């Protein structure tokens, strides 16, 4: 069991949330004019920008007749973490995250519609406070919508962890940095909640099979909750008058 108590005896987490609550999500579509689509998303103190270029003609080497090539780049700003990061992108972790992003987003995009073309998705983490990958997927999902690219469903990602309350296991939704650092298991799920399918599943430690189901179902519930929030944001954005080209300062 992880060192500090992640759940108090009153059932509150360290930051005051209950186990099944997400962090506060705030988001904004169309934050930039240059890319074809962009979005900004905050999940608690984790803040992420996503930009989408394309679909445009793919370079010769990459182009396939099967469908569109999704190209992702995940990078973390040097100032995003407590201690200054030396390399914003290209390190092992970022490369892995890029691959994971691609896997989740390819599942959501109707790739067969654009053979021989390419979509570039850039995700920039401005502030990392746990769950940066999840926020990245959610932001990219919004940016794709802003770019007008046809999707099968919203791609939503959410993490979940395990804690014990009075000796009973209790899964935690949307894990923050403090809870991640406590050393427990973190299960990250990217899914298309509409269809119920899972696009990516990743786990940081070993977790006993007994608990896996509850943790996964909690993470899936989180994805569904996020979908509702994203959907509302998209509808608000459109209702606001999508013709209005507003550049927002962040």
């Amino acid at each position, binding site marked *: 069991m992880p060192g500090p108590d992640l759940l108090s005896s009153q059932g509150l987490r360290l930051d005051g949330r209950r186990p099944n609550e997400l962090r506060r999500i705030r988001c904004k579509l169309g934050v930039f004019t240059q890319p074809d689509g962009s979005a900004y998303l905050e999940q608690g103190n984790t803040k992420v920008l996503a930009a989408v270029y394309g679909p445009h003609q793919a370079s010769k080497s990459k182009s396939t007749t099967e469908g569109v090539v999704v190209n992702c780049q995940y990078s973390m700003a040097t100032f995003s973490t*407590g201690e200054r990061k030396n390399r914003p992108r290209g390190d092992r972790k970022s490369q892995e995250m890029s691959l994971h992003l691609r896997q989740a987003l390819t599942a959501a995009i109707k790739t067969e519609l654009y053979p021989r073309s390419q979509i570039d998705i850039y995700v920039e983490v401005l502030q990392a406070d746990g769950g940066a990958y999840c926020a990245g997927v959610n932001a990219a999902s919004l940016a794709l919508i802003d770019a007008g690219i046809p999707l099968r469903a919203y791609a939503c990602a959410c993490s979940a962890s395990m804690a014990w309350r009075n000796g009973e296991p209790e899964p935690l939704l949307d894990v923050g940095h403090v809870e991640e650092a406590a050393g427990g298991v973190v299960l990250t799920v990217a899914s298309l909640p509409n269809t119920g399918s899972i696009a990516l599943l990743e786990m940081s430690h070993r977790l006993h099979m007994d608990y896996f189901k509850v943790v996964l179902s909690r993470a899936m519930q989180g994805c569904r909750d996020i979908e509702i929030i994203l959907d509302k944001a998209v509808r608000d954005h459109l209702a606001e008058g999508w013709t209005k080209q507003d550049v927002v300062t962040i």
Partner: protein
Amino acid sequence: MWTTKTFLTKTKRGNILKIVREHYLRDDLLCGSSACNICPHKDEEYVLDSKPDSVCALFDYPHYLLLDTNVVLHQIDVLEEDALKNVIMLQTVLEEVKHQNTAIFQRILEVINNKKRKFYSFVNEHHKDTYVERNPGEKQNDRNDRAIRKAASWYALHLSVNNVAGQFPQIVLLTDDENNRKIAQEEGIVCCSVKDYIENVNGFVGLIDKLSKNVIPETCSKDALYPAHFTPTQIHTGIRNGKLYQGTFHASRDNFLEGTVSVNRFEKPILLQGHIGINRAVDGDLVAIEVFPEEEWRKPSDIVLEDKADDPGDLLEEESALLSSAKPLDSSKDEITPTGKVVGIIRRKWRQYCGILMPSKFPGATRHLFTPAEKRIPRVRIETRQSDVLASQRILVALDSWPRNSRYPLGHFVRALGPIGDKDAENEVILLEHDVPHARFSEAVLACLPPNDWTIPEEEIKKRVDLRSICICSVDPPGCTDIDDALHARPIDGVTADGLKKYEVGVHIADVTYFVRPNTALDKEAASRSTTVYLVDRRIDMVPDLLSSNLCSLRGGEERLAFSCVWEIDENANVLSTKFHKSVIKSAAAMTYEEAQITIDNSSRKDEIARSLRTLNALAKKLKQKRLDNGALLLASPEIRFQVDSETHDPVEVQAKKIMDTNSMVEEFMLLANVSVAEKLAEEFPQCALLRRHPSPPPANFTTFLKATRQQGFEIDVSTNKSFSKSLDEAVLPGRPFFNTMLRIMATRCMQQAVYFSSGTLSHPDYYHYGLACPIYTHFTSPIRRYADVIVHRLLAACIGEDVTHASLLDTKQADSICDNLNYRHRQAQYAGRASVALNTHILFKNRIEIESAVVLSVKRNALQVLIPKYGLEGPLYLPSDKFTYNEEEHYQICSDVTLKTFDELTVRLTLDSTNLQHRKLVFQLVKPHVPGFSYVPEDSGMEVESVASAEEVKETPIKKRKETKQSKPKKKSKNQ
């Protein structure tokens, strides 16, 4: 459902790092009061009464109490009493308590969880109306005080607004912080100090005694006896720049003015001497010390010193006598240890102490001294009005503080355990002092048990290997009711490649895990107890009696579930194959060691049991020889058995435990089973197997031992366990049969403790068991009385697919924490067992005087530590310094023509000194060799006149002593041989 306000909390650490954390404020937190009709409580969420009865005369209207942090920290004993109810515990307070003292935090959680006490914990830090942000420049303490006041006024407002009827409970803030009280009053909050409140509580006798004494701040120097401690920041910087060191303080058992602190940087522990040097540290405290320059280093004083019996008041006595005697003479360099002094206490590790009250000489006084049973704890000054009653009782006392102007620490009375000398009270003391959980099993635990008339269900038999037809028997000490192992052996067809006969040998262990399922209340209780504790006249079970002495116990003639380990073994005791399975067995006979021995020796018995036992015995001897060839050590410890009076349960006689062939027969097969299981587990679960290791002792442990053996003319090679074992075997003195056993007893004391560990925490070579000389070892064979075996059973069952794994079983971290607890409890259980033996020897010697032969274990400056083999008793024999000279280098005492060294045999007279009820002790008096004027002379010998005369002679010629020694040496040796 949740509010979206975000707050940022900033903290700094180490290299100035800004940490930003989210802090959610909620509007769905309940106030927990039945008087409230706004909060959407569900029925079970009401904790506080709507009209609480007031117990305090100061506040005669219904009210809730709200506690400040200092109240919880200092007055936890009052809070544990049933008197105060309807109390609001703020999260701010709980967190501060948790941060400062985890033990108290656990205790207050207990109180909160007790539904009858009506303590409501209110999460004020996350409530939207009670959250307080820290102002720039405000101290954390001040902010917390402000948060507490804010919560208090919020509660008062909340309850009054909701109640139109005008009848609503008030809030009373209890705090001992004067400043806080003043501000609270200005803000219109009703507040009071704990002392005023408790003194006006009616109907609870003795509550006032539990009040903790007020703490005098360290800076107050009025009548100070001790130097002030450094402040935490001073200590912190001191340790950082290497001027101070931190370590745990261990008080000396023999000398109350001496103690040691182990510090990483120094090879030897740092010696602290005198009241000032120790400066109010109590055994176990984490302290900061300053080390003196090398010129002032000296050796430990080597004398036995006890605190004076009378109450000297608040004065520190002269201690120059002690210190000057300890000055380095011309002694060799290696005996000098670094010295230092305590300059600050980092963390107190105070617990509650058992002991007795020494009532003040003045009748009617309320201040008394308390003498703890543990010799390493100083006396405590307590205040009580019940001294007449308590004087004859064993009592439990908690320490509160140790201000600079008090010679003794201040404490308060917690509860009485029973009359002094009463068997139950004395046992209770032993159990409490060794932290042995001994409460009755709770309802929840008992609910996990099968019914009394439980029999093995048919489907369970089908799942298991049926061994009921095999002749299995168990061999145990007499009177054993928790039989957890049984054995069988039978020849099987076929021969090995070398033409040797083959046998099938099985060890069958009670299948406790069938009844103790993981994560049940029963399992948790067993895990926390960890071991069955054996006192002389009482057994504190790890699992309830129904399991330990009935359903799990492999009784003769009854069908029982077992976990079997079955080998094919050839004639020369080589294991050919091993298998493990769960089984059903029916023991043919439950024998004692003696019965089994008789069966083996009785050649007229040719039945299956006898044949089986003979095979086992023969194989065991070969196994043992193999083990010894590998370098296993045969160690010894003085073990005795009491014959207990059947009615009074008082011991009537002692005898050393008899060791028979059958003892070692059972032991060998248990060792074999343990090793086989350990190998299997380590292979299957490299990360979380529970194993047992015995680290090889550091060479430094052997220095005094080697010196002593050299004096007896033996050179012991301790480089490896094999050579050690060999040279121990060779060290035999003809005519002194006990000498070799003596050596082994002493050798045992040089060893490290064997410990449980989880295989994931160490590398493979560290698994080694030094004493048994085997590369891997665990405990499998006593699941009824050891929790380690329960875990091992579960792991093994998972290995062979008989049971499912569960999460906590496979977690290395958790396995590690289980091991820590196992090791701690195991050690405490051993100490408790020894304490119980000591207690019973004292009872035995109450009305007896005996003259027995004894052996010198070690030589101290003013005493000999002697052991009486017959009783396994050990104690100091004080030697007056005017008669005896102590040789520091070679450790012996000389008086004219008598030299006393380690391992020498003496005759001593034993009596019980009951003048001090607390530490009743056995008094040893020297009888032989005869030292004139000192030795006790049996009345009929008629030597008295002579001895007096020679005593005078000795006094006159103290200078000659050295010369005489040289002459006396050879004399002594010839005597010995």
